[in-house]
């Protein structure tokens, strides 16, 4: 039930936004995420944007993943 999906914010008017994912658009409320700007990726849960997605942090997690994959382990 805590499912949330990252979508791109393509338009906003005050507290109301339009978010898009794979050609599907949804109306989302920005009440919980007023800082979200058009163009940003937001995490959407039950009709509300609950966070903006930080690309730099996403890359850091990816780097941790790559580091683990590159770990030198004796066979």
């Amino acid at each position, binding site marked *: *039930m*805590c499912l949330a999906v990252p979508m791109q914010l393509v338009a906003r008017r005050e507290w109301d936004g339009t978010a898009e994912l794979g050609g599907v658009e949804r109306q989302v*409320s920005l009440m*919980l995420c007023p800082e979200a700007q058009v163009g940003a990726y937001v995490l959407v849960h039950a009709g509300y944007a609950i*966070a903006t997605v930080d*690309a730099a942090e996403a890359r*850091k997690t990816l780097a941790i993943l790559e580091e683990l994959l590159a770990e030198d382990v004796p066979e």
Partner: protein
Amino acid sequence: MRTGGAFSDRTTVEALVRRVAERARRLERQVTFMEVCGTHTHAIAACGLRRLLPPRIRLLSGPGCPVCVTPVDYLDRAEALAALPDVIVCTFGDLLRVPSSRGSLERARARGCDVRVVYSPRDALSIARDHPSMRVVFLAVGFETTVPTVAAVLAEAESERIANLRILPGGKRIEPPLRALVADGEVHIDGFLLPGHVSVIIGADAYAFLGEELAVPAAIVGFAPADILLGVAELVQQVLDRRPRVANLYASVVRPAGNRHAQELIARFLEPVATRWRGLGVIPDSGLGLRAAWAHRDASRIEVAVPEPREPQGCRCGEVLKGVVEPPACPLFARTCTPDTPLGACMVSSEGTCAAWYRHDRAGAGTAA
């Protein structure tokens, strides 16, 4: 932006499984890691992670499915409210088929009660706006991910003066059950995979007590297979190093302090109260009830006759939710209790531990009925 590709890629997942297995070889004993999020339960089962991991690592599901932990008396009350002629009950779909003492909301709807499935609490607000002569009751079940959306709708209802919207408070906090599970000690937990989207709201710092106070390893993780494996690798490392801490591996959306706007809205409308969890009993401060100022929004104040709560005989959902037993240990599992004819709450939602096992893990467990 989400790096979904790499995190779901098969080659990456296989390589990660090998890395985790290599790390696990250094463990002195079997370790048990628990996730406490229905979306994780579902993700782990759907991608068959249990079968990929070495036997030294046991993944357990905890009380993370909000529908599953909601006690039967909540459903009985919802059903009684639905039976009132001037009430429309709005609910997330998951709750519809959970057995109550006498039936379910689905059966109440079949009898003619006005029960509507909504995707967002905002839909309940629209329904209230459209039906001013009816009392519209939203079944506010959920963890801290969902709770702020309910608070936001209450704020809208107040500012727009939509008087006929109420909620039946059923929101839950994650910290008290985590503490209860560790204190209870019935299952020794070597680490927690923490719920990614709850963490978006409460923040990574909210779990400091796990590392500092309870010395339990913990990792906040996302929901792709690689996210979860990354978390498992981190937990193994913490066990090996004997250095429990809270690792935030979902920092793209989880900030140290969480979502302040959401926290403020929750605090404006709701306050921690003692509440009952299926399986765990009453835990102090683990629920979120309406503050006294908003009593006019509280559907639990509407007087209805509620029957003596009755759980299905033989059902072991309570123990499954604590991780004490796995679903195949229940005498009803896959025999009389199936996703088509659920007897226990954990068999209803696709996020329920029993439903997830039924669909994905029966063959691997070798305990299929």
